[in-house]
């Protein structure tokens, strides 16, 4: 009697063991894939933070990019030219720059295109009036403010 009961218990143990293996095999892969996606997202978030820290721009009234010219745009009749410099350590897509004049969305005329590498400066043009406030924002949210003088 005990040997047959022992056989029954062995069969039951085998069923449970096979069930455990089957369960682990079926569910492991999708949980593993999901955890990998989560880790990739964490890495992307980390890269976003780094990119943000590496990004910086400055607005200058002249192409000399002197410290004393920073943060101001000289008002002239007609369109106003000023200069933007990539003062960070990562490249900036000029087409992605967003400009607000007195709090309202505006656009550069002519539109900007191409890349500004670290240290590069380029000219931008807007129709501005004396006393206007200009805010320029990069694609990752870094911004710079300038006043028209």
């Amino acid at each position, binding site marked *: *009697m005990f040997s*047959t*009961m022992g*056989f*029954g*218990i062995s*069969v*039951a*143990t085998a*069923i*449970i063991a*096979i*069930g*455990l293996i*089957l*369960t682990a095999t*079926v*569910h492991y892969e*999708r*949980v593993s894939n*999901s*955890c990998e*996606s*989560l880790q*990739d*997202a*964490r890495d*992307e*978030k980390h890269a*976003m933070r780094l990119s*943000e820290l590496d990004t910086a721009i400055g607005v200058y009234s002249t192409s000399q990019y002197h410290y004393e010219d920073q943060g101001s745009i000289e008002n002239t009749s007609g369109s106003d030219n000023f200069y933007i410099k990539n003062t960070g350590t990562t490249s900036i*897509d000029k087409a*992605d720059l*967003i400009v*607000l004049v*007195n*709090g*309202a*969305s505006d656009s550069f005329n002519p539109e900007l295109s191409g890349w500004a590498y670290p240290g590069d400066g380029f000219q931008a043009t807007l129709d501005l009036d004396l006393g206007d*406030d200009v*805010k320029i*924002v990069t*694609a*990752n*949210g870094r*911004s710079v*403010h300038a006043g028209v003088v």
Partner: protein
Amino acid sequence: MAGTPASQAIFFIASVIIASVVVVALYGTTGSLSGAVVVRNSHLTDQLKSEIVIINDPAASSHPGVYVLNTGKTSLDNSTDTIALMVNGVYQTIITSDIENDDGNLQWDPSEVVNLTISGVNPAGKSVKVVVANGVSDTEQL
């Protein structure tokens, strides 16, 4: 002793049935648990890839709307009923949510700005909070 083979068979069958029930229950529970983990991870992944920034100029005295820049890695839903906007903690009904620099696909892609307009409240000098559908938010003092 005449009943011994029958009782042995009953014990055997019972142990097999109990083992099968345990396996089925375990499989179902593990399935539910792994499903929940996958859903939770998917939600967290979506949140980690999403990011918004309110880019209004605090120096401006008036704001034609609340400008929200998508600084994340995924497209977001810009329909008015999926975005919550609060001014000084009070919920505001969004009138329009147009994309300012849309590339033509009518989706709020990364590096695109949505202009949220509300009526009756000038957000100048107030605390503005914007929350998108997946719970990602940004707060700015204008």
